[in-house]
């Protein structure tokens, strides 16, 4: 791996610290104020400090990262390593689900409504389609066709959003039947796994957004786009397991 | 060279895997023994075992540490060079098999004892134990009830099996004298057994962290004669 010449000054960046501080205020402090001490005002204050810091941190960091062409080459290798970790989280959730399910005297436990399989199958098509459209975007990018890339990226984002809306619709439907998170073991497993997956879709969409905005200005960072793509395909693959374990089994 | 090393390794491996299971064979259908005595035996074996292993490594290191001190400032070490595959594998596989043999020896010992510890004798007296924050309740076959102040009263010379559950959090029931403990938790029933053969009082305690008064959850196992026990259990009925 060639590293070009050495700069003789100390490197620095403001954004890691800002982002970490933002997370510190917005997550642990706000959460504990809200749920442990039941003090909504404190929670709002902490969230109010934390969320802007997070936004500044992410925006600044991506701006720096996208304009910095050097040293980014490893990202495409880093993402798959990171994904190993993500995969383990999903595995854990599935193991918990299996343990709950297989040790239960009856399944589904009392109080679980019928969960239809029609919607999840449509959702599968939507998500798979978005993986393909993103891939087309990458092909355009390699052909140096900026506007083609933007077009396919927007299509992928629309598909991802549709997926999330469908999840929302389904949740709404189930909740209205009194099937809440704590109702029984099945609901706990159901909402945790599908919810955790949906949060990954959401994160994916946010990453796409940070690709899209500079892309309008003609600034497309290849490794960034590829890394985002790998992540998106991973989220897609996990969905197959969600469907087969939660909906079809 | 490399072939010879591999052959040697294979032979050691076969011996180790082949011989050990024979030892553990006839244990399954044993009648009950007082497993504390067996415990003591295994414990002493084990102390010798780890004592010898530790001793060898320790004596070697201390000897090296003194014998090979630097004499001249520019002196460098003259350690063995591992250039051939035979040497590398030999120094890896032979110790590995020796360690493995010892591991299997210890496993076999532990397994044997384990079977004693987990096989409840048929004539055992049942006591139901319930843990809650922060106390115990004992319920006997005849309906007698006791708690940690009163103690777990048992007759001498008859094995006792405890069927245990918890009302709230995880606790653990531990009698050091009989070398046993097991957790209690909501949603499951666990068991333990022991053989009280000497009269007297022995401490039992809770050994799973369960909140503020975790260290107050203790009492005495009171081993009494059969007559005293009968009298006591009549009195505590209902």
């Amino acid at each position: 791996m060639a590293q070009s010449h050495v700069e003789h000054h100390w490197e620095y960046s403001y954004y890691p610290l800002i982002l970490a501080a933002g997370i510190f205020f917005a997550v642990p402090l706000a959460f504990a104020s809200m749920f442990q001490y039941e003090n909504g005002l404190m929670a709002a204050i902490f969230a109010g400090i934390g969320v802007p810091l997070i936004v500044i941190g992410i925006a600044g960091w991506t701006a720096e990262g996208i304009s910095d062409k050097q040293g980014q080459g490893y990202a495409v290798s880093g993402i798959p390593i990171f994904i190993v970790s993500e995969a383990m989280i999903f595995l854990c959730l599935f193991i918990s689900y299996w343990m709950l399910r297989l040790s239960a005297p009856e399944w589904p436990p009392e109080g679980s409504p019928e969960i239809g399989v029609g919607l999840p199958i449509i959702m599968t098509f939507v998500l798979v389609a978005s993986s393909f459209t993103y891939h087309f975007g990458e092909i355009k990018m390699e052909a140096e066709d900026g506007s083609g890339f933007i077009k396919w990226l927007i299509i992928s984002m629309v598909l991802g959003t549709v997926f999330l809306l469908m999840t929302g619709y389904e949740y709404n439907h189930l909740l209205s039947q009194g099937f809440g998170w704590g109702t029984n073991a099945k609901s706990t497993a159901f909402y945790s796994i599908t919810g955790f997956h949906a949060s990954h879709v959401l994160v994916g969409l946010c990453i796409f957004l940070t690709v899209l905005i500079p892309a309008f200005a003609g600034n497309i960072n290849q490794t960034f786009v590829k890394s985002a793509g790998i992540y998106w395909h991973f989220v897609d693959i996990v969905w197959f397991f969600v469907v087969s374990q939660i909906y079809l089994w | 060279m490399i072939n010879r090393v591999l052959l040697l390794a294979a032979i050691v491996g076969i011996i180790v895997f082949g011989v050990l299971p024979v030892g553990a064979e006839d244990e399954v259908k044993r009648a009950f023994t007082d497993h504390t005595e067996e415990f003591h035996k295994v414990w002493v074996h084990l102390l010798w075992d780890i004592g010898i292993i530790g001793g060898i490594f320790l004596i070697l290191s201390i000897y090296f540490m003194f014998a090979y001190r630097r004499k001249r400032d520019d002196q460098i070490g003259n350690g063995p060079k591992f250039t051939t595959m035979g040497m590398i594998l030999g120094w890896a596989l032979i110790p590995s098999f020796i360690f493995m043999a010892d591991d299997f020896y210890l496993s076999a010992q532990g397994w044997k004892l384990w079977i004693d510890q987990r096989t409840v004798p048929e004539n055992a007296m049942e006591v139901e134990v319930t843990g809650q924050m922060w106390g115990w309740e004992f319920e006997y076959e005849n309906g007698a009830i006791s708690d940690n102040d009163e103690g777990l009263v048992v007759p001498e010379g008859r094995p006792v099996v405890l069927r245990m559950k918890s009302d709230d959090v995880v606790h653990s029931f531990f009698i050091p004298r009989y070398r046993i403990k097991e957790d209690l938790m909501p949603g499951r029933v666990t068991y333990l057994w022991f053989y009280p053969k000497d009269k007297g009082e022995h401490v039992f305690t809770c050994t799973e962290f369960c909140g503020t008064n975790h260290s107050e959850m203790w009492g005495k196992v009171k081993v009494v004669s059969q007559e005293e026990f009968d009298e006591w259990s009549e009195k505590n009925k209902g």
Partner: protein
Amino acid sequence: MIKEWLFTTDHKRVGILYLVGSLAAFAVAGIVALLIRWELTGIGETIGGVGPDDYNFWLYFHGAAMILAFLIPGLTGFLANYLVPLMIGAHDVAFPRVNAFSVWLFWFAIVIALLSFVIPDPPDIMWTGYPPYSSEFSPGNTAFYVFTVHLIGFSSILGAVNFLCTVIYMRAPGMKWNQLNFFVWTILGAFVIQLIFVPVLASSVTLLLTDKYFGTAFFVPANGGDVLLYQNLFWFYSHPAVYVILLPAVGVMMEIISNMSKNPIFNYKAAVYGGVWGVVVLGSDVWVHHLYTSGLADWIRIGMMVTTLIISIPIGLLIISLVGTLFRGSIKYSTGMLYATSNLFLILVGGLTGIPLAMTSLTLHLAETYFVMAHFHFIMGIMATFAVFAGIYHWFPKMTGRMYSEKLGVIGFVLNFVGVNLTFWPLFYIGFLGMPRRYYDYAMFPEFEPFQVMATVGAIVVAVSMALNFYNWIVSAIFGEKAPENPWGSNSLEWTHCQSPPGPGNFPKLPKVSSKWHPHEYKPQVIEWV
């Protein structure tokens, strides 16, 4: 100046930030340990006004801070950050900004842990946090525990991605895998474990959070949950985590022992491929040995007894290499070397006392007693901690460009070694006699009082020696005399190819290593530059 430290992305400065944070955590958690010891010297309430709830919070803090905020960041944060890029001849890590982000996540986790001293209802659930106590019954702030784990966990995962990429892609031109420093191998092993298992820990504590605050039913048997699920997930991470500590600790020992006896590592390849990777592979299927008395099925306890015992094989290979490296060496003792060699004793005591614990039938008696507590203090609280100190002393001239006071160092070492032995041997003994862990009071065992007193005296001796060490580090870093360029005559790139302390970018030019070069070889060798 402040900007270049606070916002730095340079791996050396990030490493120093890790060092400062983890030593701060160690000092606070150590002082808390002294309070714990003080409370235990007598039966009943020993420190006026201190009740069981204070004690439980202290113990929670001591355990969680020592493991999560001192040892893991000290070894895989500070030492890895400072040394790995230098040892492999790289300018920095693969993702410097991510690296800075990791260190700050870790710092904020420490802040959360310290905040527990001032908030109402601090967590009191011990570092293991078993439900249903933690998820239903504890009045304490379980959320803080969970988020401490989350922040440190996330920081570790990012560190893992970072270092795996760094070592895979950024080695100096010509550097083959078999030419890596041993420490680099152990860091790779440790980070592979972190990458795979930290997510398990993170998810298990998240389930605690949702159970406690959102009413889910993972650990509520009445609603179909299972309390043992958590214990399994928790130890599925936390056992491998002990090897995250053990491996780099052995790595540091190996570096120092090889360097100070000017001897190549005894059977390097067996130690790397059999020892390090053997531990990584085998370490993942032994977690049930923490659940021997939890009421799991008998067969799984027996199965894991065998796998646990087998861990002694790869660790045995590591020990053979450690001891063998002394053989026909040319040994010189520095403070770092004293810590490293005394570790040979400590790792044997700590490791071999793991063997009775590994045997289910003996653990039926030993589990959750002071025997366990003495076991892990020997191997982790002392051995791994000594490894961190050895590392600090050995690379002190590299980090500061100055020399520490060898005399103070040796005095500190002797006191430390005597103190820890005085503290923890009596605890083995009363542990075997049945003294349970996590006890604020031991009124049932009045006969143990003299042993507890002895342990407290030992702890005070340790504290004195720690104060000497801290004094030595701080004063020598500022006023120490200039250190020679390569005081230990090492052949590893961090000594031969950059100044002390290394400047930005580490190497004036990238070193290029030939196939004859080896970091653990002490014959004069030629190295080219790119």
